[in-house]
């Protein structure tokens, strides 16, 4: 059936995309897990039954999992499940902030390099290559150490190391689009460079970028947790999952549950983003899958 309007065509495309996506059970599971994470973060004050930062040192220290404390308590007597629930906010915040900072930066650098070519391209891509040549975790560590510990600085450090692959990708997409006839037509119609970039190139470079960012989310979560584990991310008593594992490290041989809960939480959320990313890639960017 031929769509009657642009609007209808857009709706049909979204529907087709969703149907293709929904056929992939694993991707759907990933999406549901992420929705669950978002709901947990949103409803944290109502879901958490205990105070996440204050525990009773005299009566509830290092209790094994039980009916009252489903995942046990830590060395400060705090309920681990409640801390995990509040910690979901931090994880979600980090992921969203890094994506919001790094993706537009990469998109801007990449599309500008690809569209203008010449020395702009050479300069921007050299810069990208230098950042790409760096080991990401180490660079983020050094940045976080220089900026000082804290969640904002951890986000900044991760974002500063995350954008180069996006710039590469956006440039490749732009190069493929630059010679297209419709761009020539828009140019003839007198559109400015910024209009062409913003309205006609960036939207088309977006799908593959979204896939890439989603696939990177797991890496971002793991890096943030690693920073937290090393004491460079969120500071105590914040219930950040990586920092919680670091806190449980001293007790891992006898009170395994202190580190097990947050570790499993990081694993499940990273896995969810990986599954979702794989599914999105198959729908939005069929070239990327084998």
């Amino acid at each position, binding site marked *: 059936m031929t769509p009657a309007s642009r609007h209808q065509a857009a709706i049909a495309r979204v529907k087709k995309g969703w149907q293709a996506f929904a056929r992939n059970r694993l991707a759907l599971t990933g999406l549901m897990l992420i929705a669950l994470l978002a709901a947990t973060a949103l409803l944290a004050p109502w879901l958490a039954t205990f105070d996440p930062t204050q525990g009773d040192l005299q009566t509830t220290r290092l209790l094994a999992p039980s009916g009252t404390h489903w995942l046990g308590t830590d060395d400060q007597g705090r309920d681990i499940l409640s801390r995990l629930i509040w910690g979901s906010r931090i994880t979600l915040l980090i992921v969203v902030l890094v994506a919001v900072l790094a993706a537009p930066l990469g998109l801007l650098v990449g599309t500008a390099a690809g569209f203008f070519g010449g020395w702009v391209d050479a300069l921007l891509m*050299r*810069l990208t*290559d*230098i*950042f790409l*040549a*760096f*080991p*990401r*975790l*180490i*660079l983020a*560590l*050094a*940045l976080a*150490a*220089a*900026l*000082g510990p804290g969640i904002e600085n951890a986000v900044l450090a991760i974002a500063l190391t995350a954008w180069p692959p996006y710039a590469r990708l956006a440039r490749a997409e732009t190069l493929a689009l630059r010679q297209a006839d419709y761009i020539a037509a828009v140019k003839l119609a007198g559109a400015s460079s910024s209009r062409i970039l913003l309205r006609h190139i960036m939207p088309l470079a977006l799908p593959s970028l979204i896939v890439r960012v989603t696939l990177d989310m*797991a*890496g971002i979560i*793991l890096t943030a*947790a*690693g920073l937290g*584990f*090393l*004491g*460079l991310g969120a500071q105590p008593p914040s219930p950040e999952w*990586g920092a919680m*594992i670091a806190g*449980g*490290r001293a007790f*891992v*041989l006898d009170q*395994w549950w202190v*580190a*097990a809960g*947050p*570790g499993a939480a*990081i*694993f499940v959320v*990273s*896995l969810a983003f*990986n*599954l979702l990313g794989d599914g999105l890639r198959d729908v939005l960017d069929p070239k990327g899958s*084998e």
Partner: protein
Amino acid sequence: MKLLRLLASLALTALGLLAVTFLIGRVVPTDPALAVAGDRATREQLIEVRRQLGLDRSLYVQFGRYVAGIARGDLGESLLTGNSVTTDIARVFPATLELATVGIVFGAGLGIPLGVWAAVRRGRWPDQLSRVLGLVGYSAPIFWLGLTALLLFYAKLGWVGGPGRINVGFLYSVEPRTGLMLVDTLLAGDAEAFMSAVSHIVLPGALLGYFSLAYISRMARSFMLKELSSEYVVAARAKGLPERRIVWGHALRNAAVPLLTVVALSYAGLLEGSVLTETVFAWPGLGQYITHALQSADMNAVLGGTLVVGAIFIGINMLSDVLYRLLDPRTK
């Protein structure tokens, strides 16, 4: 000409690396002069220290001095150990090299066969196994897996040695010649010490290797799928070659060159991954050196370590690029 271009790009990337570490060193909120002079220093003393450190000069001059210092192998002094950072890194680096090498032997040794197998049995259980291993590898925090593995294999089952490189009893009896514990104990001819070193490196090495295994096996699978669908494989099948020879003799041989690049890159990645692994296993290598330095804001040591890892990263990148061109006749 190509070599010249390569060298130029290498030099440029190295300079960029230096610029980044230099700039990171500048954004530190604490005044380095204050750290040297102490907080009871008078204003005049502070100005004097600043002059001595060259902090009163322009940023370009400072950067020039920084680069010149590094060219002489001077990475500054570590506040924590009091040694020069270069000496410190030379001391701890063999431990990391040893760990990463065991890791890559494990990762490539199991990852490549697994990837080939997954490609041959596409969609069947070997393929699913490689997919699941890959997903877990991409999703699990390595420090948590490390802690769990220590709990299980060391504390509960007692199959492997605990944290550290060797049992403390052997620590001072083995003469450090290469700095590689496995080699040193062999050179000393001490079988017991060697076994102790093996039992300590197995777990962190395998764990670190697992993360490269995940990547290597996925890449091996995708390269093999491409090769197996090409025409020469059809021709080889048509002339009746046994499937085993087609897979291992023909297809894998063609996939070997890009695979080599993947293995080289994973090796560089393992040097980086060792930061968290070493922290968990109390492995006295570069990673632990950097994290200890991080926790005490010892910026010279942090940046020196970052620079060394970055330089190795760039070096291996370049090397794999060159190897690719040399080994693959299609790039000529």
